């Protein structure tokens, strides 16, 4: 086949129009030749014999008549062993390798192999000669860190394939042939441990999609108990700047109860990625006992890196997530921030002179966002096991106003909404998830009736609190005042959580259930309190003891002692358990 070459006819920012002769397909990758370098680009519109392409790099120096070489391939991610622990840019170039080649700066036109082609992997065949397999079924495994990395029939092969020969157990590089299969027409296809998959297409080599039912523990009390996320579910975290979106995602990436975490740093600060890069190799994953970095992939396209590859980066990340799901693993994809991705779409749409929708976002914004989140899912795999991709995206709404298009489009498709509020973050109440506006459609780790009771206390307390702003403390009855104090205490000891303390930040399922029971008892009881000062003193002491309790290790001696302190104070206040709480705690109807 001869090279398919076109010529540049116009340049507008990173949008370049190319005149071509042969066939060109939508979303095909091409390279613009500028002097010695070739700039990676993607076809995004075709009109007559003009293809409009978005260039993933700065276009300085491009001129009319420059050659453009079409590759025939769509933008693809290379999949295979060795992805874990890597730090990639949006186009899957390993950043540390780029640094070795280009130094301090991200020079344009430098592309590096995504996977190490020299490293040898210990391959164990699983399939036998004569076995018939389909795309997404595996014929061998290699160990990758703590995981068994399955080697698949590439996802893009259609139909049935029969194993003609398969390599023996031994060490191979990713590019060595480890199996030869024949298709239905008898054609032979050699297979290696790696293959490419176009990132903008969802991987669908599973038997069926199941409803997400199992809670994905994040160890954040407010999330797991009140606004839970399910394995295979989706959630979004919108919030104004400084409300703690990134810290919350950072905590989740450390403690979430999943096998693999993929962090897509999309259009945000480089400094935050550096924090992860510095911290993660030092931290130990309690599940595997290995470094946290070994279960993490970082796709990093920070705000000053080219916009078009920012758009690609979320797709690259979700493709890798789907790949590891195929191995029967639970994968969490954290995208920070999807607004920057939407803005990248807006920039290109503007250059294409498309008719703008709301706030100049393109009209297809909603369907793109929906399609992205729909790539999450809890699935049954061909071998009967299950795997999941959970997607959590932050949204950075302009002016902190949730009415804007990206937030609204996202809310339509996600299963849980963790809205961060400026008010709570200003009051240093972290995580600043606003319990009044947030919601979740998934099941949490704590009995929903007990949580319902807590929510009632909270909302009742907020109502009294706002009334008190008008009538003052003097105008509030003692009973109301106590409810207000109780709700304030619940907020302080359960909703708020110190993410920088190792024990406090990592609050597991059993502990959450245990603490909730105690809280239901304390909140659902009446006390003999003479006046408001006494009430405030009592509840404040109770609050302090709960906070101390939170910082003790679960089921340790200190934990028992702190719990004893709470019980003692409860007895001192002559706590009298109310009927509602009693029913809840006894599990009665």
């Amino acid at each position, binding site marked *: 086949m001869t090279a398919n070459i076109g010529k540049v006819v116009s340049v507008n920012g990173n949008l370049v129009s190319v005149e071509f002769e042969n066939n060109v397909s939508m979303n095909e990758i091409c390279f613009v030749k500028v002097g010695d370098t070739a700039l990676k680009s993607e076809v995004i519109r075709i009109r007559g014999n003009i293809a409009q392409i978005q260039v993933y790099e700065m276009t300085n120096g491009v001129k009319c008549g420059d050659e453009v070489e079409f590759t025939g391939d769509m933008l693809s991610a290379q999949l295979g062993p060795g992805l874990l622990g890597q730090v990639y840019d949006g186009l899957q170039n390993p950043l540390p390798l780029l640094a070795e080649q280009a130094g301090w700066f991200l020079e344009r036109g430098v592309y590096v192999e995504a996977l190490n082609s020299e490293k040898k992997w210990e391959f164990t065949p699983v399939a036998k000669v004569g076995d018939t397999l389909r795309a997404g079924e595996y014929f061998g495994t290699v160990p990758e860190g703590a995981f068994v990395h399955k080697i698949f029939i590439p996802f893009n092969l259609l139909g049935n394939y029969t194993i003609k020969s398969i390599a023996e157990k031994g060490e191979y590089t990713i590019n060595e042939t480890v199996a030869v299969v024949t298709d239905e027409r008898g054609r032979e296809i050699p297979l290696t441990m790696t293959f490419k998959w176009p990132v903008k297409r969802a991987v669908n080599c599973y038997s069926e999609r199941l409803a997400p039912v199992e809670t994905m523990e994040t160890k954040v009390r407010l999330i797991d108990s009140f606004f839970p996320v399910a394995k295979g579910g989706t959630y979004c975290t919108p919030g104004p700047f400084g409300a703690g979106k990134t810290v919350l995602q950072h905590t989740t990436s450390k403690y979430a109860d999943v096998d693999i975490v993929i962090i897509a740093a999309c259009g945000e600060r480089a400094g935050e990625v550096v924090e992860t890069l510095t911290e993660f190799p030092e931290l130990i994953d309690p599940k595997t006992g290995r470094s946290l970095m070994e279960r993490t992939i970082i796709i990093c396209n920070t705000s000053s890196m080219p916009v078009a590859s920012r758009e690609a980066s979320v797709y690259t990340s979700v493709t890798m997530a789907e790949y590891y799901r195929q191995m029967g693993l639970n994968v969490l994809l954290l995208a920070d921030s999807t607004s920057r991705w939407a*803005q990248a779409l807006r920039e290109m749409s503007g250059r294409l002179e498309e008719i703008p929708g709301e706030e*100049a976002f393109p009209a297809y914004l909603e369907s793109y966002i929906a399609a992205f989140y729909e790539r999450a899912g809890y699935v049954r795999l061909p071998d009967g096991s299950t795997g999941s991709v959970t997607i959590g995206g932050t949204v950075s709404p302009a*002016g902190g106003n949730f009415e804007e298009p990206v937030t609204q489009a996202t809310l339509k498709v996600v299963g849980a909404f963790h809205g961060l509020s400026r008010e709570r973050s200003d009051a240093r109440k972290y995580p600043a998830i606003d319990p009044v506006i947030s919601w979740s459609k998934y099941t949490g780790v704590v009995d929903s009736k007990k949580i319902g009771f807590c929510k009632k206390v909270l909302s009742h307390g907020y109502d009294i609190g706002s009334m008190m702003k008008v009538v003052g403390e003097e105008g509030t009855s003692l009973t109301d005042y106590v409810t207000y104090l109780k709700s304030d205490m619940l907020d302080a000891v359960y909703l708020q959580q110190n993410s920088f303390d190792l024990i406090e930040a990592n609050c597991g399922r059993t502990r959450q259930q245990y603490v909730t029971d105690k809280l239901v008892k304390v909140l659902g009881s009446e006390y003999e309190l003479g006046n408001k000062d006494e009430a405030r003193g009592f509840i404040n002491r109770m609050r302090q003891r709960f906070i101390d309790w939170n910082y003790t290790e679960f089921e340790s001696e200190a934990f028992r002692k702190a719990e004893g302190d709470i019980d003692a104070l409860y007895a001192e206040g002559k706590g009298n358990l109310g009927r509602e709480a009693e029913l809840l705690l006894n599990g009665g109807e």
Partner: protein
Amino acid sequence: MNKVFNKIESITGNVITVKAKDVKYKELAQITTRFGKSLAEVNKIEGDVVSLQVFAGGKGVSTGDEVRFLGRDMRVSFSEDLLGRIFNGSGEPRDKGPVLTENMQPIGGPSVNPSRRILANRMMRTNIPMIDMFNTLVVSQKLPIFSISGEPYNQLLARIAMQAEADVIVLGGMGLKYDDFLYFKEELSKGGALSKTVMFIHTASDPTVECMMIPDMSLAVAEQFALQDKDVLVLLTDMTNFADAMKEIAITQEQVPSNRGYPGDLYSQLASRYEKAVDFANSGSVTVLAVTTMPGDDVTHPVPDNTGYITEGQYYLKGGRIEPFGSLSRLKQNVNSKTRKDHRALMDGMIRLYSSYKETIEKKNMGFAMSRWDEKLLKYGALFENKLMDLSVNMSLEDSLDMGWTILAECFEKDETGLKSDLIEEFWPAK
């Protein structure tokens, strides 16, 4: 050699088009009008129609003026000779010094590889207590100063320029009033900081296109100094003018506006400038402080809003003071544990008491009776504002911390401060 064209097809605002072949995107041209020569930059190519933004503006450009393409993109000369000099947005001298042409460096270059960045961990002292003590500036940080017009932000920048612990200061002025330009020049030479300063100045009366070049020029120079092991502090004022200049050009070129007329890539444009802040391992660093005026004191206006998402915190300048509540240096915890052991506790304690003072003021204004505790808070608040918050206060971090203890001792008993007992034992001033 260079191609010369004598036929300008269209002139809209500051943008002209000519018919030309073999022109590169972002290439520079020189246009000769009856008022003199000006640079112009290619910002769009459609077939043989080339759009250029004229640095000196479109006013008085004739269709018959000569356009000469230079075959290179915008560059800035870099050497030690820059120090003490003042330039405009085209890189031409604004002082009486010679034109510099040696060692031309590209501007708006690629960003630093994130895997080569290191965690910011060095404090940059400014001797302004509200910065050093309460929201410490960290080397390689990017911070805006959110302010409304009329606040003394330029005075603040000038003081930081003179006092900050930086090897080189790069000052980028965008849409500066001429008085402010003179003020900076005078203050810096009075304070003896001019010799370590490079200025790129665009005044309000200069053409808009030059305004857009200022941050790139300033940051390119800063980056070069940083690669030569210098700690560089870049001061930009005012980024809202920069954003407005972008808006003007975008609208002129009939781009689809997104929010309040600003172009859709406002975030990316601002980010690519701010992200130039960096600490090169084993070499120098670039720290960016940029004034962003908030039209109508509205922090949700697109410029401050987008800025807030990019930067690592912000300083609010309000009522002539750096406001302790809204202001935030996100990187301060990287450094303030290493300064003096009472730093963090004292900072938190004093802010907590100051917030109680604010509540007391509210109560007082509503006519409630003042308790003895309230009286103490009132005294404390007044002392805090005069001795630490006032912008004219100039003292080292250690002196500020001591001053903090003195103020506390003057107003409160030891156990009323809520500070840890061992710190109180060590630092409480003897009367």
